[in-house]
């Protein structure tokens, strides 16, 4: 049935478990295991598959033109399967950000984009969605090549979701409503929801195209212009997508894409005096720096989607097999490189031992290898830095006395592959239970009762998401309201949809993306007041 297609592709919800087979190989591996390397087999001995795509765009996109960086400098973007260079990409710096902001400013102040009827903006975004569909595999191949995520995930889930998001925001363009407002006296009052202006947007490397969509979708639907900085690890797919958006009819200067590094291009965008709004997704430490730059410069409003250490709570009434599968997915999806990864698996003591045993077995079955190969669940980590960081955390887990159930080391001798790793007997004060590891490392903690798990789940500087695994409505309601997080997934995880808002409590960030809430980030509210003479009613 098509009814659950979109949400179920990214979720392991109990009710749709049968249709969601892309990543869950737990109980039906046999038919798929031919040609798939279990991590116990060295993958890297095989030559990497040649990606079915050519890199056509490596320059900056400014004012509708692909151009070199003002400095002429480039940086290499690397294939995480091998560490080898895919392409040399123009390296944007302050001067390029200035050029891009000037183009966006002009496109905003002089039009045509914000002056265009919303229906026309909608049509351009809809045409863009159609072009994304037509270039699905090309976009997916670039995404996998640059990022290392399984091609099937890119091609069957993420790129279709990208098109879906653009259609969703296209539909908002002609439905942005201000209000007429009551007043204490004879006044006529209205609010106008106006585009905020030039938006600066900085996106991370873990979901390059989806983060691109989350950012530009609401900004463009509301009539803003944009300067977007991609992550230096993954500059490629956004450049192709942006070319398609121009093919769909986007006027020059409305969307400018600058590849480059955080301390240079990112910092000059965050501190630019002529940028009206900033949106950032990335680490909490960088988010703090971005917010400071915004405050020091022109006080631009900032939305932040930052790190997380999200609890996944398995209650005592849970069906262990499904809970194991969902918890596995919650952590290992996208090589564990998800800000909302369920990275603290709290399991009720009554089922703890069984759960650990099965979680270990599931991790052992996880197919790791060349992400272009069919049936692969896990590719390499993004780069050396992340790779080393994850291995360091694994060492600290062992040193601190957690039980390493499986994994714990690199896979092969080339590229950034790490074996799916499971720790049990993890204590709250261990580093692996506190820090965001951003890798394939599951930490399983034991708990006794609901109040205890609420307290422990909330004792984190983060508050992005939580998973709750129970069939009891009262338990679900209590946990839902008690957890200080921006998303609670009950009997599902990573269920993303264009309409569901996403964002963090506490140090996981400010504001919400997606859904109707995301529009507020890109709109100014103007109250308009005028006296009424002889009003028929008030």
């Amino acid at each position, binding site marked *: 049935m*098509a009814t659950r297609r*979109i949400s179920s592709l990214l979720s392991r919800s109990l009710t749709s478990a049968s249709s969601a087979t892309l990543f869950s190989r737990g109980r039906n591996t046999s038919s798929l295991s031919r040609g798939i390397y279990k991590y116990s087999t060295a993958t890297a001995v095989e030559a990497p598959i040649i990606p079915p795509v050519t890199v056509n765009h490596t320059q900056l996109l400014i004012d509708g033109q692909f151009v070199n960086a003002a400095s002429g400098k480039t940086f290499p973007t690397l294939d995480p399967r091998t560490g080898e260079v895919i392409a040399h990409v123009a390296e944007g710096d302050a001067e390029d950000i200035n050029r891009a902001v000037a183009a966006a400013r002009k496109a905003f102040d002089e039009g045509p984009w914000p002056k265009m009827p919303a229906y026309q903006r909608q049509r351009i975004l809809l045409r863009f969605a159609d072009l994304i569909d037509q270039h699905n595999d090309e976009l997916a191949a670039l995404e996998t090549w640059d990022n290392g995520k399984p091609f099937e995930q890119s091609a069957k889930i993420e790129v279709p979701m990208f098109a879906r998001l653009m*259609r*969703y925001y296209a539909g908002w363009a002609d439905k942005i409503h201000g209000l007429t407002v009551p007043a204490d006296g004879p006044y006529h009052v209205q609010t106008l929801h106006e585009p905020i202006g030039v938006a600066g947007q900085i996106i991370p490397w873990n979901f390059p195209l989806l983060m691109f969509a989350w950012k530009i979708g609401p900004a463009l639907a509301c009539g803003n212009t944009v300067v977007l900085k991609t992550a230096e690890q993954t500059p490629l797919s956004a450049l192709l997508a942006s070319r398609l958006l121009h093919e769909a009819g986007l006027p020059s200067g409305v969307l400018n894409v600058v590849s480059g590094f955080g301390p240079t291009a990112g910092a000059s965008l965050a501190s630019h005096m002529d940028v009206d709004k900033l949106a950032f997704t990335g680490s909490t430490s960088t988010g703090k720096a971005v917010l400071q730059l915004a405050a020091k410069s022109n006080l631009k409003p900032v939305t932040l989607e930052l790190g997380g250490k999200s609890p996944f709570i398995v209650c005592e009434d849970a069906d262990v097999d499904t809970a194991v599968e969902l918890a596995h997915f919650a952590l290992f999806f996208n090589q564990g490189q998800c800000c909302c990864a369920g990275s603290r698996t709290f399991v009720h003591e009554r089922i703890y031992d069984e759960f650990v045993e099965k979680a270990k077995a599931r991790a052992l079955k996880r197919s790791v290898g060349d992400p272009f190969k069919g049936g692969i669940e896990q590719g390499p980590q993004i780069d050396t830095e992340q790779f080393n960081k994850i291995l360091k955390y694994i060492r600290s887990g062992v040193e601190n006395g957690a039980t390493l159930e499986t994994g714990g080391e690199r896979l092969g001798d080339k590229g950034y592959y790490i074996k799916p790793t499971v720790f049990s007997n993890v204590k709250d004060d261990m580093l692996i239970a506190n820090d965001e590891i951003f890798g394939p490392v599951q930490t399983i903690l034991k708990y006794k009762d609901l109040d205890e798990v609420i307290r422990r789940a909330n004792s984190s500087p983060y508050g992005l998401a939580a998973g709750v695994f129970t069939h009891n409505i009262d338990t679900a*309601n209590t946990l839902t309201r008690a957890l200080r997080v921006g998303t609670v997934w009950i009997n599902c995880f990573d269920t993303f949809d264009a309409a569901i808002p996403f964002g963090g409590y506490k140090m996981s960030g400010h504001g919400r993306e997606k859904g109707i809430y995301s529009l507020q980030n890109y709109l100014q509210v103007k109250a308009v007041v005028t006296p009424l003479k*002889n009003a028929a*009613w008030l």
Partner: protein
Amino acid sequence: MGSHCNDSLESSIKIPTIKFTQLFINGEFVDSISGKTFETIDPRTGEVTARISEGDKEDIDLAVKAARHAFDYGPWPRLPGSARAKIMMKFADLIEQNVEELATLDTIDAGKLFSMGKAVDIPTVASAVRYYAGAADKIHGEVLKMSGEFHAYTLREPIGVVGLIVPWNFPSTLFSLKVSPALAAGCTMVVKPAEQTPLSALFYAHLAKLAGIPEGVLNVVTGFGSTAGAAISSHMDIDAVSFTGSTEAGRKVAQAAAASNLKVVSLELGGKSPLLIFDDADVDMAAELALIGILHNKGEICVASSRVYVQEGIYDQVVNKLVEKAKAWVVGDPFDPKVQQGPQVDKRQFRKILTYIEHGKREGATLLTGGKPLGEKGYYIEPTIFAEVKEDMLIAKDEIFGPVLALAKFKTIDEAIQKANSTRYGLVAGIITKDLNVVNTVSRSIRAGTIWVNCYFAFDNDCPYGGYKMSGFGRDSGLEAFHKYLQVKSVVTPLYNSPWL
């Protein structure tokens, strides 16, 4: 006198073969159970265009059964909004690909201007489908603030099987304004187009099927109000009915709904809409809006500016300009791109309008221009303007639904408001002035569903319209209309140990 453009266009305009003349039920074109048919007439000539299956009560029963099944068991309400949207976007694309043929069908059925159909009416159909497609994945309920330890939220669910009764003056636009939000909401439906204009609705049904709208979701039963229409209004298995048409027929729909299963009713009915022109208005612009306000679509539009009130300071200037413009107005074959006004829809309307013109003369209004039929064939009427119309005259009270304007003078703002409101209708009003205070005062004082300030016919997908008083209730267009097709369900459950309430 409106000039009559009588060039023969039969050779230059290709009238397409009429492809669909049967009822569309459960995804198939079928004959009516009785086997009966009725004629649809070309108002340019009074000749028969095609014979159309005549649906009656038992055909409505079949259609409702299909719609019920599609709602209770079919995929449509169970698809995610985004999937319904995708199918609707395809439907919109198909409509755009068939603009010419659809515009032609409305022209030979309703006498509407072909150029207008091609440039405005049919593209607007596609844009409304897209607008509501974009709303299909944005149906939000609310989580509520309970005063005790309860968690509560509202679900906005599709209301079920809806009956949609569409009039003949805008066969395409009104089909789309009812069908699109119902589709987006996840409803299934039985549409009855007007017996004068069945052709385009059947063509839309065909396109909907091509787009992938599942069987039973959209059913079209052609036929008459007293039989097929009445069967919809009184059906025990239809959850809501949305009707556009005359106030008399609307009253019957509401009565039948009340007498049967108390189905939810929305009515968009007649009007006698005032256009108020104040002393500071630009005379040329005011005369232009007043004229288009009454002559657009030959006056066959519920929101026609059929009463024009001009402030005394510029009354003579506006009247002169208006008459001058009316005389230059071109009436003739609606396929001719030079023509501004085609024939009235049928003989009955034609006669009714001429009778009202006679009333106007008899009651003592001054006939400034027009007042007669044009040509020997078809249902053409001259643009007609009466001045010095008093509020108690029939031509100031009744909806004529033809190219007949009633003019009067006013002195003060209060008098303008009082005159504007002295009607049983309340559909729209127009205001022409640059004075902000006049605009605000008059906008709030007139009891009508839409106020157009320094513009007229400013319809938009996002802009609800509908009536006060006997112009009906409920709104078409915008998200207001969307909510007509959604039920609200509150879900409540106790909370234990909630950290906040």
